[in-house]
């Protein structure tokens, strides 16, 4: 209860921004320098991907008490390179039912678009490069975050086209699942970002980083992970959903779809999906770092020691990389800990929990900020708490009602007539049940081992061995 009442105070402790935030300054960046920075960023991303594949396998290995790749290079660090070279020389199979053009276009879309979002991530302060002062950020626009969401939306085409063009059942299902998944979670993700924009008053990534640095309490920068903790949680959940990673990797679902949308892909075309997935992981982690964890700025107190020398220039790259990799570690940790969820549970989580809760949260943040702006005049907390209370009440009502409806549905299911029981081994070999039939529950071994009491007296009928006895013998 105390946390409940205290939280609005924390959220409201972030002071209002009174002046325009400084945005990244690209005025001294000629086009050729942008080109050089693009190639540097490209290298950074590629090295990260190569490292993360090895990192993931090692960490998961340790979590599962096995060494992981340890043969090629020290600690197996060259494993990814070996895998990549192998992929290049694998046979490139195109199934005969495939739509050739789209079959080739899909991996190209996924891989090339995956890079784009990284362009707007600020990775450090201003640095000297070839005689020009330029920020460690490829570019920034007033709608930079929108660019990330737009690119994520377009790369969903890659997955659905991959599934559709394969001309095969599992990929089609995987592609559809992937799209439904991405678009469902994109809404909750978008809603969680609204709160950040409400606080920062901007959609430019460098300005959002600056806003976090300036919203200080007792001199400590209050990164948005603190006042907007709920948004952060929603973002982290949705970023796992968006990138098709365990426990939400339903679009691939090896157990049920045999690989999902990339079932029919092989060689480097498959490699592109693989690569795209990992780059997307980095993109959403980098965005989380930028929006919630203070971006490239050093954590307190490192940002003030030595007159802030550790908080400018190339140092930013270090802090940024550390923060981003902590998200990557979280990804791996989650993958190592949680089993895959069921698809209907996954959709229910998105539509019935994350979206309504995010909506209420956005409204709450909106009201808190309104009260801070003085829109409600004096005695503002009364209004906010009342409205917030109403929101929680309505939401609880909806949740309770949904549970009630589910229970009613379950009751109706139960009341349905029981389908006819069949013995799968009746004809000597196992037969799956037809619709409207159900199998006899297999008897546990203990029960079977129990001594059978033979009734005294003659058995009626001449068949001494019923099919049931027969099959018990066979199974035992």
């Amino acid at each position, binding site marked *: 209860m105390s946390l409940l009442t205290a939280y609005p105070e924390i959220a409201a402790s972030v002071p209002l*921004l009174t002046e325009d935030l400084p945005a990244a300054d*690209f005025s001294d960046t*000629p086009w050729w320098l942008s*080109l050089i920075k*693009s190639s540097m960023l*490209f290298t950074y991303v*590629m090295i990260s991907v190569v490292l993360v594949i090895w990192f993931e396998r090692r960490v998961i290995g340790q979590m599962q008490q096995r060494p992981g790749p340890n043969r090629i290079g020290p600690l197996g660090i060259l494993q990814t390179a070996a895998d990549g070279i192998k992929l*290049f*020389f*694998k*046979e*490139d*199979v*195109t*199934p005969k*039912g495939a*739509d050739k053009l789209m079959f*080739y276009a899909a*991996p*190209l879309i996924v*891989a*090339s*678009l995956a890079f*784009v979002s*990284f362009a707007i991530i600020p990775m450090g302060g201003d640095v000297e490069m070839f005689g020009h002062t330029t920020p460690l950020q*490829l*570019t920034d*626009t007033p709608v930079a975050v929108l660019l990330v969401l737009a690119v994520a939306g377009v790369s969903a085409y890659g997955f659905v086209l991959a599934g*559709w063009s394969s*001309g*095969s*059942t599992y990929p*089609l299902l995987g592609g*559809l699942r992937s799209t439904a998944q991405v*678009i*469902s979670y*994109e*809404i909750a993700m*978008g*809603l969680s970002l*609204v*709160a950040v*924009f409400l606080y920062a*008053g901007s959609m430019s990534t460098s300005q959002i980083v600056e806003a976090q640095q300036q919203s200080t309490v007792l001199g400590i920068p209050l990164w948005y992970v603190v006042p907007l903790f709920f948004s952060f949680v929603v973002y982290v959940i949705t970023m796992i959903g968006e990138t098709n990673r365990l426990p939400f990797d339903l679009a691939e679902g090896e157990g049920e779809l045999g690989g999902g949308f990339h*079932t029919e892909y092989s060689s*480097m*075309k498959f*490699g*592109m999906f693989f690569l795209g997935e990992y780059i997307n992981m980095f993109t959403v982690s980098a965005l989380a770092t930028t929006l919630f964890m203070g971006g490239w700025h050093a954590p307190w107190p490192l940002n003030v020691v030595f007159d802030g020398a550790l908080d400018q220039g190339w140092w930013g790259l270090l802090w940024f990389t550390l923060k981003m990799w902590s998200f990557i570690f979280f990804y791996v940790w989650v993958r190592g800990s949680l089993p895959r969820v069921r698809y*209907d549970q996954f959709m*229910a989580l998105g*539509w019935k929990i994350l*979206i*309504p809760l995010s909506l209420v949260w956005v409204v709450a943040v*909106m*009201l808190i900020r*309104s009260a801070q702006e003085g*829109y409600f005049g004096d005695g503002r907390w009364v209004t906010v708490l009342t409205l917030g209370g109403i929101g929680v009440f309505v939401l609880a009502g*909806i949740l309770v*009602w949904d549970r009630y409806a589910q229970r009613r549905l379950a009751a109706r299911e139960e009341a349905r007539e029981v389908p006819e029981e069949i013995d799968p081994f009746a004809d000597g070999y196992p037969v799956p049940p037809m619709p409207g039939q159900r199998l006899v529950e297999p008897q546990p071994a203990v029960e079977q081992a129990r001594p059978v009491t033979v009734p005294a007296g003659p058995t009626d009928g001449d068949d001494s061995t019923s099919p049931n006895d027969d099959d018990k013998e066979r199974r035992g």
Partner: protein
Amino acid sequence: MDYHPYLPVVFFLFFGLLFAFGSVFGGALLGRTTYNRAKAEAYECGIQPTPQAHEGGRVPVKYYLTAMLFIVFDVEVLFLYPFAVAFDQVGLFSVLAMLLFLVVVSVPFVYEWSRGGLEWD
């Protein structure tokens, strides 16, 4: 030439495309190719492939429902963005207008929910 904010994005996309094209077509050229009729069939765990998946087959109507819901909510989120960015300039009137908008969008959402549109079976 003045700095254009989207030019580096184009550069970066260019690198991405270069890499993707190089890999996909390089892989196709380097890998050996042997024809095998079974290999060209659609993969379905060894059973005869279902024919209707060819050319995409028919997509269950459920997916369209999700897509429509997505459109509604994505537009809602997109309305929220400029409002959030300009929040300190728009005043109480806009806050109330946005609340009204959220309520109006929530009513059909509740309808959809209670009529089972969000059940995935």
